[in-house]
């Protein structure tokens, strides 16, 4: 037996918008992701060339060297639109809040050894600036990219990096008793400590990359693919007796990484599979940025783990393997 409430069924004239129906191949019910995403960016009959970049329209496929017949091919496997994105993050944040409360109430960080605390201050807190730089890059791809299928997840990712920069900062505030002293110190480390300089140079170099899909590859495979896994996974031993609380406080980052990669991998795979020319370009970019990120992480790896850069090399090797699995010639 089932309970059945009788409702009035009115026959709809159509099931979805016409542009969505054309993409689905028929007028059938469409998902909210599809209606919120497909073809929503303007594509033709623009009025004025940007004063700041008159060689392009504000929406212009020529802002990257890769060519897609249809920029609505690289869809988001997570099917994020604003609502599902925010609800997913709010849920992840709920877990993060519990972890922060757990660590704070038990003083797990402040009770950790001086050695562990020093390693966190030097080795982990400056990554807040790397997230901030990543936030700038994702905002750039949002404004410069083509087609809502790719650009909407970019602004979500920009929000994520800002959020992660803030979680890392809160680790510092836990350590310094909410005075901000560790964050001032971390900025000096980021700006001056030799172990961090190649990482800072790398992210500053991405800031001036004008090809937005090149930037996408640099960010996804270089920064997210090598540097962040190095920080959040491979460097664990450096936190010594604080490794467990740090694992709790960075759980968000690891969950985020796995989820973000589902999207960015799928985008890169789709774009590279479009043509041999795309594949060659994307492969070249992937090789360059994975190599640079690996080299940039080595001094930090050596400084934190005294491993002569082995952990960084391992992160780089995994990134290369991943890139190959996306169909890239690396």
């Amino acid at each position, binding site marked *: 037996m089932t309970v059945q409430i009788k409702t009035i069924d009115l026959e709809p004239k159509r099931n979805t918008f016409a542009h969505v129906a054309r993409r689905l191949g028929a007028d059938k019910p469409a998902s909210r992701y599809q209606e919120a995403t497909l073809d929503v*960016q303007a594509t*033709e009959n623009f009025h004025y060339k940007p004063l700041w970049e008159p060689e392009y329209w504000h929406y212009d496929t020529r802002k990257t060297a890769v060519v897609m017949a249809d920029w609505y091919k690289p869809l988001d496997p997570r099917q994020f639109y604003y609502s599902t994105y925010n609800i997913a993050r709010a849920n992840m944040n709920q877990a993060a809040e519990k972890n922060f409360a757990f660590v704070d109430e038990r003083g797990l960080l402040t009770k950790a050894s001086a050695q562990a605390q020093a390693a966190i201050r030097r080795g982990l807190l400056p990554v807040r600036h790397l997230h901030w730089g990543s936030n700038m890059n994702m905002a750039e791809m949002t404004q410069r990219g083509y087609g809502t299928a790719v650009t909407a997840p970019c602004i979500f990712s920009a929000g994520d990096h800002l959020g992660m920069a803030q979680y890392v900062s809160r680790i510092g505030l836990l350590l310094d008793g909410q005075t901000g002293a560790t964050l*001032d110190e971390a900025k000096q480390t980021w700006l001056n400590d030799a172990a961090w300089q190649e990482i800072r140079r790398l992210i500053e170099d991405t800031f001036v990359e004008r090809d937005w899909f090149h930037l996408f590859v640099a960010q996804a495979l270089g920064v997210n693919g090598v540097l962040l896994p190095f920080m959040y996974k491979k460097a664990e031993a450096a936190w010594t007796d604080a490794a467990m609380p740090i694992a709790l406080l960075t759980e968000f980052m690891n969950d985020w990484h796995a989820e973000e990669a589902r999207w960015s991998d799928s985008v890169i795979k789709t774009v590279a599979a479009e043509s041999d020319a795309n594949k060659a370009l994307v492969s070249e970019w992937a090789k360059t940025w994975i190599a640079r990120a690996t080299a940039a992480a080595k001094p930090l790896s050596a400084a934190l783990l005294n491993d002569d850069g082995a952990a960084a090399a391992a992160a780089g090797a995994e990134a290369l393997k991943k890139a190959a699995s996306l169909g890239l010639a690396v």
Partner: protein
Amino acid sequence: MSGTKKLALRQRYEYLTRGLDWETTYQPMDKVFPYDSFEGIKIKDWSAWEDPFRLTMDSYWKFQAEKERKLYAVLDSFAQNNGQTTISDGRYANVLKLFLTGISPEEYQAHRGFAFTGRHLRGAGARVAAQMQSLDELRHLQTQVHTISHYNKYFDGIAEWPLMHDRVWYLSVPKSFFDDARSAGPFEFMIAIGFAFEYLLTNLLFVPFMSGAAYNGDMSTVTFGFSAQSDESRHMTLGIEIIKFLLEQHPDNLPIVQKWVDKWFWRGHRLLGIVAMMMDYMLPKKVMSWKEAWDIYFVEAGGALFQDLGRYGLKMPKYADIATAEAEHISHQNWAVFYQYTHAAAFHTWMPDNEHLDWLSEKYPNTFDKYYRPRWEMWAKMEKEGKRFYNPALPQLCQTCQIPMAYTEPGDPTTICFRSTQYKGDTYHFCSDGCKDIFCDEPEKFVQAWLPVHQIFQGNCGGATVPDVLKWYHMNVGADNMDYVGSPDEKLWNEWHAEKLRQAG
């Protein structure tokens, strides 16, 4: 900033936002931020920026997720219970057609534009605020699409909204407005959209649509409106902060900002003409007249705002007096345009009935009976005689606002206002001194305008005849366009109501 004292909330927020930023050294700052100097705006000290709201990302996710859960619960319930059958009248759906084809795509443009300023303003505090607005504007586009998606299942004129936005003649008015802002520099964008649009004029754009929804039983759209209210408040605080900040930073900024305020006030005023028409003619249940809204939200509230900004030397926008005088006319003149071009519009038109005419007479005692009522009565008579008036000629468009040249001379409502100027040997035409001034200030920009009528004559819109062009617009002729009376919308609405009456016995 380092210390041993616990951080106050404000300092803590600064550590979590602008404290993340640094001066680049491996790449020059001017290469990292290449677009923030050509407009001539001088910023001495970005650290003087006052964060207009202090939301960390975790709080943002939490608040926004909560609002989204509630909103989508209402949208689902509205669809399940056939909420579209309990709106005030089938005519109301035309307001939503205008909204989704004309306004929602601009929410999207705002999303991309705030991503631009969210990356390219040199001040990190301002960037964070702009990025959150970029996220919010994407929210508004997507929730509007989802809200109106249900209406699309039953009403015509909605299904092709993105394509129509790119092609249909009157939709080039809002599109060119936003293309203008998007192609401007980052500071002009912030004044154009952040200040003029989101602060000065928001009560005349967003609010009338949402109040209209509330008055006309559209529970889904009004729920969206309530849900977006706190976003809009944040946008308003950003808009007022940016203008104050620019004016406080350097006296040389004043003439530049004044020029932008003048430009975007006038452009906004022209764009709002469609809202005026919606309020006075398209809402079956009226909220207030356009004239009343203008008096409250521009003359009074805007007047107070500019009095406040007067301490920086900023003056009321140029031609504000003309705009106020036009508030007596603009809705009537716009409705007249759409009535005579109803065959080329993706929403329905109608002549007001007697009760509606009397309401207009009451709300517009200085102008309606004298200038507009006689025209409506004549057109209604012609309809009855089977001689419904259509205008078969294509109208001349204003080079700046792209509206057909149908507005009248200030102080003389019986003479069409024409202005023109020469640029590099060509003549350009305008609907007003306001639009002409805007052109003359940036002719190299405005000569580029994709004017729909010019494009039709140049053969770029599907062909030489009206049916060719309508086909290129993806207009479903006889369903999307023409009068409400006799439309499939009307037929369906009447069926629903006959069924309701039958059930009520």
